[in-house]
């Protein structure tokens, strides 16, 4: 029934001092699907993304990407394999403009080596043109065209968030991990995010999305894992997962 | 028209303490000459001075400025060998005269076009003098404690050779880098083995630290130092006080202490009678010789008067120690032999001063007591 897993996480553990941020997480992210990762604050969702993208080194456990062991590979290598992410607490490239941030995102730019930069100007300039078109299209979708030449540091909180997502999308990813893409983003743009995710999924991209906005999760996620205290607690469809009484009491609360 | 002359002197950096007196002495000579009506038929000297900051690169730009902007015929001064060495090619390329007060042998080596003159004893003659002092004070074993700098390095081997000849034994050579906050381990290393004496080759600031440290350490070895550290025209005693300074021996190339001209020089410098000037005397001599040589050559063109330097410094000739008198004699067509406030100013063909003797003093009860002259 499930398509073959794109990414498999087995028994991943990472401790910070006394806290086990990840405590043997085991879960799959399916190919070509949108997988939601939800759970209470401090459940270890961000840490999980960090471990999957080379920013936190797991103490034990394995990560398999299409069967290949990629546990603990450095960040840029993971990005090179098509696993990209956005950050919950935005990490903008402060002095790069919005537009430059996006131009910097695409992988394998021939102008990023010394020799390529000096002697292959024609080649990289052509790439740059093509990337500029892509960047512009995305800027229009997230409503940042007018701010294209603004240094990223001078964006509002929500705008930074959108920029960060756009830059991840430009990296030609195969699996894209979004950490709370909806937080701080206005409702209309949140709908835009939903549309974008659906479109890209149709193009064959796989997603892992950490999000606290249940509407957004419900709208886009094919499958949901609920994390709590560093473990995968429940998984299933959105409806299944959110019906679980443990999830309701620990995460959703009576109000939701 | 005025005849421009220049000097590159240290007013800051590690050798900063030595510049001011040199400047004073040079200005004094210029004043005497100009008050007496100048040279070459009434032309006054005009002195320009640049700070070397104890840094050769700065010395070079300063020299360039003197040569090109002020059009000087002489670039004198030059306390430190590295600065003189860096400036030498530039001065020679401009066909001007360089006079130095530094001791590294290399300064007058190579092709100098006969335009480089040293008003200082060479490093290689300081070393043996030190060994003789050791002998005088009865030291059989010695350690050399030396700052890592060009003129000091050149003193060590000649010292060792001479000391061995005199039957002494050098136990160790402790080199240290300049500009350190303290010299505790150096002192420990040099004095810890209780040699009879330690030959301290230091400048003023580091020697102040070293002397205090030795005193505080309660070490027994005698100290033989260079006067540039242990006297520095009285600055050392002023800095450490009589207690710490007591019993330190030091040596330096001797000025003609008993000559009336030297006494007059000390007086004009505003110093206490008996003060031993080393570099100020040299600067005085540089300026005097320049004026005399120009007058002798009847030209302010460096290429011309450089040759006259030997004529006015070396015998034969009537001995004069007063620049104004010397000028008069030259105008009167007499042959002179200048004797300066720093030295007799006899030069060999290289432009090095010869026959320099060394004055040895001991600090006793807050005073320098002369122990004699070593030749």
């Amino acid at each position, binding site marked *: 029934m499930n398509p073959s897993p794109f990414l498999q996480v087995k028994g991943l553990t990472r401790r*910070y*001092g006394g*806290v086990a941020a990840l405590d043997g997480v085991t879960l799959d992210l399916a190919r070509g699907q949108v997988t939601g990762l*939800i*759970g*209470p*604050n*401090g*459940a270890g969702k*961000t840490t999980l993304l960090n471990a999957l993208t080379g920013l936190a080194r797991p103490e034990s456990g394995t990560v398999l990407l299409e069967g290949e062991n990629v546990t603990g590979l450095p960040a840029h290598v993971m990005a090179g394999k098509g696993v990209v992410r956005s950050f*919950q*607490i*935005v990490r903008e490239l402060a002095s790069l403009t919005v537009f430059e941030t996006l131009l910097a995102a695409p992988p394998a730019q021939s102008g990023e080596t010394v020799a390529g930069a000096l002697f292959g100007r024609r080649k990289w300039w052509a790439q740059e043109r093509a990337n500029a078109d892509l960047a512009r299209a995305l800027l229009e979708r997230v*409503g940042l065209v007018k*701010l294209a030449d603004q240094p990223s540091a*001078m*964006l*509002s*909180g*929500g*705008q930074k*968030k*959108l920029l960060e997502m756009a830059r991840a999308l430009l990296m030609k990813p195969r699996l894209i991990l979004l950490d*709370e893409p909806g*937080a*701080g*983003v*206005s*409702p*209309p*743009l*949140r*709908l835009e995010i939903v549309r974008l995710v659906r479109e890209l999924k149709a193009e064959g991209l796989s997603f892992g999305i950490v999000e*606290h*906005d*249940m509407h957004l999760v419900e709208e886009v996620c094919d499958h949901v894992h609920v994390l709590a205290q560093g473990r995968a607690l429940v998984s299933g469809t959105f409806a299944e997962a959110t019906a679980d009484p443990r999830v309701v009491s*620990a*995460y*959703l*609360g*009576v*109000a*939701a | 028209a005025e005849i421009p002359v220049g000097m590159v002197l240290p007013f800051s950096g590690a050798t900063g303490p030595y510049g001011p007196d040199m400047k004073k002495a040079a200005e004094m000579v210029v004043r005497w000459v100009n008050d007496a009506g100048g040279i070459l038929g009434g032309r006054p000297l005009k002195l320009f001075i640049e700070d070397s900051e104890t840094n050769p690169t700065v010395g070079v730009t300063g020299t360039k400025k003197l040569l090109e902007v002020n059009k000087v015929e002489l670039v004198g001064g030059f306390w430190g060998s590295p600065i003189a060495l860096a400036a030498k090619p530039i001065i020679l390329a401009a066909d001007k005269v360089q006079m130095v007060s530094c001791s590294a042998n290399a300064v007058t080596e190579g092709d100098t076009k006969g335009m480089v003159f040293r008003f200082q004893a060479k490093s290689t003659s300081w070393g043996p003098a030190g060994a003789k002092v050791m002998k005088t004070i009865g030291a059989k074993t010695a350690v050399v404690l030396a700052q890592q700098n060009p003129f000091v390095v050149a003193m060590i081997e000649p010292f060792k050779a001479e000391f061995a000849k005199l039957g002494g034994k050098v136990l160790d050579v402790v080199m240290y880098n300049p500009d350190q906050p303290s010299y505790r381990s150096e002192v420990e290393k040099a004095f810890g083995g209780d040699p009879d004496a330690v030959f301290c080759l230091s400048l003023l600031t580091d020697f102040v630290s070293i002397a205090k440290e030795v005193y505080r350490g309660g070490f027994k070895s005698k100290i033989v130092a260079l006067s540039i550290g242990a006297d520095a025209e009285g600055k050392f005693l002023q800095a450490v006080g009589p207690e710490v300074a007591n019993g330190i021996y030091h040596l330096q190339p001797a000025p003609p202490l008993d000559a009336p001209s030297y006494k007059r020089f000390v007086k004009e410098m505003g110093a206490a009678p008996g003060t031993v000037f080393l570099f100020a005397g040299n600067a005085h001599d540089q300026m005097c010789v320049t004026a005399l040589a120009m007058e002798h050559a009847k030209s302010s063109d460096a290429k011309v008067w450089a040759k006259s330097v030997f004529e006015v410094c070396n015998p034969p000739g009537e001995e004069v120690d007063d620049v104004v008198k010397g000028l008069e004699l030259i105008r009167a067509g007499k042959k002179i032999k200048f004797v300066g406030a720093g030295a007799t100013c006899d030069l060999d063909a290289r432009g090095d001063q010869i026959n320099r003797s060394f004055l040895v003093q001991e600090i006793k009860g807050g005073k320098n007591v002369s122990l004699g002259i070593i030749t």
Partner: protein
Amino acid sequence: MNSRPCDPKAEELSLALAVSGLRAGYGRGGDIVCGIDLAQKAESIVAVIGPNGSGKSSFIKTIAGLVPTRAGTVAVSGRDITTLSPARRVASGLAYVPQEANIFATLTIAENLKLATEFLRGRAGVGPEQREKVLDLFPELRLRPRTLAGNLSGGQRQMLAFACALLANPEVLLLDEPSAGLSPKIVGETMEAVVRVREAGVTVLLVEQNVAAALGIADEVVVLVAGRLTLRASAADIRQADLAGLFFGKAA
């Protein structure tokens, strides 16, 4: 836009927060806040909503004194605070929780909490009782007092920041997206906390992108687009409205 009561004096006294003609911007750039008037009655909750980059945070920062005011005035409970430094504004009863960087990451949780009150000399109602009350709202904060706040998860940070602001026993509380990054349960609890805070006599001005949550507790809503207030209405009225329409300029 807002209905004016007949007696201006009485109104002023009952106003907890009065902003008029407020203009502000960054550096030498143009105005980001372009002449905002807002009068808020004591013990009310007003939610500010609007598109990203419309100037909500800038507006609230200007009130808090962190962005220099170019024109206009701000008064808290009838006292003009326009010329006061941010620190003095807090002492005058105005507390603020920023959107980003709202805790001291290199201080421990306990130190963050201590610092929240220790430099508010003379502020009434600040003390151990208030502290207990606030910590009861966020029991998690008691668990690891010596943990560096920078190591907290995103949601945990929000709680800490909120708690610190409440410790100052403010009359007016400015919240910039307090629910961002919180789990639904905690969002619910936070919103409840806001309501409770209001019941304790605090006036709340709240910026939210989580419109649903904000509408659940706000009395009134103002919409801010491109630095101007384009709409002020009761929360109930907005609930039915088309948000996209509101945000992209179709002002009522």
